[in-house]
């Protein structure tokens, strides 16, 4: 601050004391120089200096310095910070300069054909990956999110805690949870709506065709008979969910016990048009008649629930057997309702209805219906990522591949920077500012990324059908999506900016003097940076390679490992209609027909047994006090069994092995009433010795253990082998009939079987499954992942090698003279190839050392999802490493060889 009440200032006073002692603080001046706009600096600094010297004379050095500092800080204001716009350099869009830059950029692209091609192809592949992943993620995220009520539509999940275990699932058989003996939906739901405020509508839904007992069901109208995959739902279904009803009324579609809603496909199959279907009768499973009350549009792939018809819920409960206990309960909440509050009230109501002595505690939770598809798994009772994991992985991989491509661009651009350095020097001398140069180089990289974008947009259109096959999706061409036209330019800009960042910043920072004098050398920093990028690139590629090998081997292992039974040449068909009552007749006839080797039956398809009894899963139906299965010396042990009732030839038809005792046999009269077999795992868990001969009972049936089966896989390899209990019952109305065809006579066998079934069971169409194909279907998601990782790994390696090719070309070009001289001095072609490729080989080896542990960690985590898995043995890593090294070496060596065979006379003369 300047002192008040003082003398008239003496501007031209005595000469200032010497500068060294009486100068303002240096750091304050530097600060001022740094922040102050250049066009104001002279005047401001001058004023400050003058004031400083004035204060020195008036009040002494100390105060003058203090004031100076205060003034410098006081000047940090917008007017002093704001830079004046230069009329010459900043605006690249002034047309003449813009044209100039465009010309230079295009000439660069054309002159460096190979490098440009490598860049464009690399970037295009990376971008195509990104676009596909974007479409895939978009599609995944849209699943179940098309409902008009989606903001207030919640699905229930239940968590059962007890016996040290926590199990959660979206499957909520509400009547069982709430201990309602009455299984009708209406009464339970009315009760819930009454006691839990905020619940507007409720719906129950159950698929009719999924395991363990579900299957396609037969419908008949007049002469037409066909099987359809359908479900059951309670009456609010069509008003809660937005499945468009094209004929009939949504509100009354499922209002009474005889109503059915059918899809467009089914309506058109039976009645030609949807309108004609309304009010007509359809016959279900040759047993019940339903009236078509509504026809809805076929559910789109965006719906995780797929159903070709919907039966009234109460009809299911009162007149049919449960196809599964996968029952989904959904609530439509009031706009203003707080889902957590509703959850709390629901649980309070649940507690009031449940048995306080029960060792298990059941709690309910709400999750937005649109989330259940992606967040499909549970961790400690809370919905967890599930499918979301794959979305994250693939997004990550797409970004990786794009980065690999961008690194190519950076590397090639910096490597070539020597050539462009002269241009930069001249431009700077002529007056180009650093900012203009940065803009220019970014402009060039964006131009290249634009070319790449055009290529990738075309590629995408061409590859979309194959992509759909690869992922099993139905993605249509995105050209009509408005957001696609935002994503495309955004992708182009991002790619251009990432790819151009290093060259733009590096090249523009070069000093014109050293460039033009020719003393510019790559700093070790730049070389390290380039090597680092190559390492990074190859690490990513090697990780992808290792992942591919692991996933492929695991999938291969799963599909070809010995399951303990022989599933080749076995087909099975659903027991329905007359097939049960006429089973013996069918078996007798079939065995005499050509192509059929064996016939037997089982209550469950042996490759995917879903039902577990006595398991601690919270379902009152399956753990009624652990008493469904009893045995000699059971005590307090609790064992979850997979039960099956089979025919006498079950062991032979599947080629199972008996390790103790004997198999079922018609020779023993008691076998159909008294015999049980268990597997080795059951023996272990039951904790008994010498099981053969001990008594055992399943439900009301009591008998003795006659033999022990060698463990075989009754479900997918994700699950460990469970205890198994098998008895002979050749009269159950459900299950499957298995037929072993004679090897190589599949066609004859199927033809015989079809004619036989048509004769015995005319009201049902002949539908069968091959057991090995059905088994493979259990691993559909693994197969999709195998295909996708294969593609990605190939792309990653391809792009990395492209980059390496570019770098190798560049190095060879740089060292033309050196190579010539070496050859003159007697080096062989081999020596030179070795010389050029060694450096890169070292980089690949380093990348491998980085990649192997990372990949090992992640693949180990992935493998944990399987109860039976391959070992992460050294050869997997070795193969990946060798592949990467071999490919990289091949690329470099080819290039090195080309430059090594050049006649030295030529290369040396060119200088």
């Amino acid at each position, binding site marked *: *601050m*300047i002192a*008040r*009440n003082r003398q*008239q*200032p003496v*501007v*031209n006073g005595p000469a*200032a004391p010497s500068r060294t002692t009486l100068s303002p603080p240096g750091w304050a001046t530097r600060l001022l120089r740094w922040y102050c706009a250049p066009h104001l600096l*002279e*005047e*401001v*600094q*001058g*004023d*400050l*200096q*003058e*004031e400083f*010297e*004035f204060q020195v004379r008036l009040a002494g050095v100390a105060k003058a310095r203090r004031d100076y500092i*205060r*003034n410098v800080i*006081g*000047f940090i*204001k917008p*007017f*002093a910070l704001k830079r004046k716009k230069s009329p010459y350099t900043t605006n690249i869009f002034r047309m003449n300069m813009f044209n100039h830059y465009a010309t230079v950029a295009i000439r660069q692209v054309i002159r460096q054909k190979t490098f440009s091609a490598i860049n464009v192809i690399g970037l295009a592949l990376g971008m195509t990956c990104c676009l596909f992943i974007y479409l895939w993620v978009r599609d995944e995220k849209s699943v179940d999110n098309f409902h008009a009520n989606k903001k207030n539509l919640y699905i229930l999940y239940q968590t059962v805690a007890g016996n040290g275990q926590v199990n959660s699932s979206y499957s909520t058989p509400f009547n069982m949870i709430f201990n309602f003996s009455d299984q009708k939906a209406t009464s339970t739901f009315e009760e819930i709506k009454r006691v839990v405020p905020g619940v507007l509508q409720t719906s129950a839904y159950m698929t009719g065709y999924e395991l363990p007992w579900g299957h396609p069901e037969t419908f008949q109208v007049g002469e037409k008979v066909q099987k359809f995959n359908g479900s059951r739902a309670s009456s609010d279904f069509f008003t809660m969910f937005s499945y468009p009803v094209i004929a009939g009324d949504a509100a009354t579609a499922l209002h009474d016990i005889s109503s059915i809603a059918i899809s467009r496909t089914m309506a058109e199959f039976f009645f030609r048009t949807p309108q004609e279907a309304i009010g007509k009768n359809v016959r279900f499973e040759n047993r019940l008649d339903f009236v078509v009350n509504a026809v809805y549009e076929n559910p789109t792939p965006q719906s995780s629930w797929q159903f070709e018809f919907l039966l009234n819920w109460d009809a299911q409960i009162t007149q049919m057997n449960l196809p599964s206990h996968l029952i989904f309960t959904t609530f439509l909440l009031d706009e203003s309702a707080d889902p957590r509050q509703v959850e709390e009230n629901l649980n309070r109501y649940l507690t009031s209805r449940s048995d306080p002595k029960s060792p298990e505690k059941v709690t309910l939770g709400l999750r937005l219906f649109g989330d259940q598809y992606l967040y499909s798994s549970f961790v400690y009772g809370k919905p967890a990522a599930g499918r979301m994991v794959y979305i994250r992985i693939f997004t990550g991989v797409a970004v990786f591949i794009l980065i690999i491509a961008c690194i190519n661009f950076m590397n090639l651009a910096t490597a070539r920077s020597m050539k462009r350095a002269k241009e930069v020097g001249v431009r700077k001398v002529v007056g180009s500012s650093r900012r203009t140069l940065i803009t220019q180089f970014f402009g060039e990289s964006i131009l290249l990324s634009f070319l790449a974008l055009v290529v990738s947009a075309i590629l995408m259109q061409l590859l979309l059908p194959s992509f759909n096959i690869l992922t099993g999706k139905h993605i249509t061409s995105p050209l009509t999506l408005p957001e696609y036209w935002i994503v495309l330019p955004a992708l182009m800009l991002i790619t251009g900016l990432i790819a151009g960042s290093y060259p733009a910043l590096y090249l523009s920072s070069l000093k014109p003097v050293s460039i033009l004098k020719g003393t510019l050398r790559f700093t070790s920093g730049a070389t390290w940076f380039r090597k680092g990028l190559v390492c990074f690139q190859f690490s990513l590629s090697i990780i992808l390679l290792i992942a591919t090998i692991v996933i492929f081997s695991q999938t291969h292992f799963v599909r070809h490992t010995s399951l303990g039974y022989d599933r080749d040449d076995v087909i099975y068909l659903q027991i329905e209609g007359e097939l049960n009552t006429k089973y013996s007749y069918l078996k007798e006839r079939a065995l005499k027909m050509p192509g059929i080797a064996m016939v037997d039956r089982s209550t469950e398809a042996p490759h995917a047994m879903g039902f577990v009894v006595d398991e601690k899963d919270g379902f009152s139906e399956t753990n009624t006090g652990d008493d469904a299965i009893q045995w000699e010396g059971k005590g307090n042990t609790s064992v979850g069994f997979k039960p099956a009732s089979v025919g006498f030839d079950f062991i032979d038809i599947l080629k199972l092995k008996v390790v103790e005792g004997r198999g079922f046999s018609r020779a023993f009269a008691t076998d159909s009433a008294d015999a049980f077999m268990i597997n080795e795992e059951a023996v272990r868990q039951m904790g008994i010795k010498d099981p053969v001969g001990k008594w055992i009972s399943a439900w009301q049936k009591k008998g003795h253990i006659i033999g022990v089966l060698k463990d075989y896989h009754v479900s997918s390899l994700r699950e460990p082998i469970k205890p198994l209990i098998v008895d002979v019952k050749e009269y159950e109305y459900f299950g499957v009939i298995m037929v072993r065809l004679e090897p190589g006579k599949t066609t004859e066998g199927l033809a015989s079987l079809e004619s036989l079934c048509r004769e015995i069971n005319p009201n049902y169409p002949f539908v069968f499954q091959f057991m090995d194909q059905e088994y493979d279907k259990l691993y559909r998601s693994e197969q999709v992942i195998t295909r996708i990782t294969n593609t990605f790994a190939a792309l990653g390696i391809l792009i990395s090698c492209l980059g390496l090719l570019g770098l190798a070309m560049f190095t060879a070009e740089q060292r033309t003279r050196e190579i010539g001289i070496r050859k003159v001095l007697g080096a062989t072609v081999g020596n030179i190839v070795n010389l050029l490729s060694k450096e890169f080989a070292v980089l690949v080896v380093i990348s491998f050392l980085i990649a192997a542990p990372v990949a090992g960690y992640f693949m180990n985590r992935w493998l944990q999802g399987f109860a039976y898995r391959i070992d992460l043995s050294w050869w997997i890593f070795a193969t990946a490493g060798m592949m990467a090294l071999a490919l990289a070496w091949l690329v470099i060596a080819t290039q090195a060889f080309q430059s090594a065979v050049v006649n030295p006379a030529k290369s040396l003369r060119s200088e």
Partner: protein
Amino acid sequence: MKRVYLGEFEEIVLLLVAMLGEESYGVKITHEIITQTNREVRLNQVHSSLHRLEEKGMITSRMGDPTAERGGRRKRIFTITAYGRATLEEMKALRIHLWNLLPPTLNIAGV
């Protein structure tokens, strides 16, 4: 009536620019304000005020000659424009007009 807003401090700075003629630059104006008005002001306040006045078109500036006590740096000399002068006169006229409207004896509240 269209009118550019001129703050009280800006008015003083503008008057001083008009008054100081060839000597009107940052330090000089600051010192003059301090001596004439007994106010505490700092250089940066004067500078930003000058900057605003220049943006409003009431003063123009040019770089003067380098002087030794400024370490050989040039001063920026400010001159009032016709528009600036007109604004000042307009303000003065308005004040006089308002003063003339006052009754001869001022009724001071509370007295």
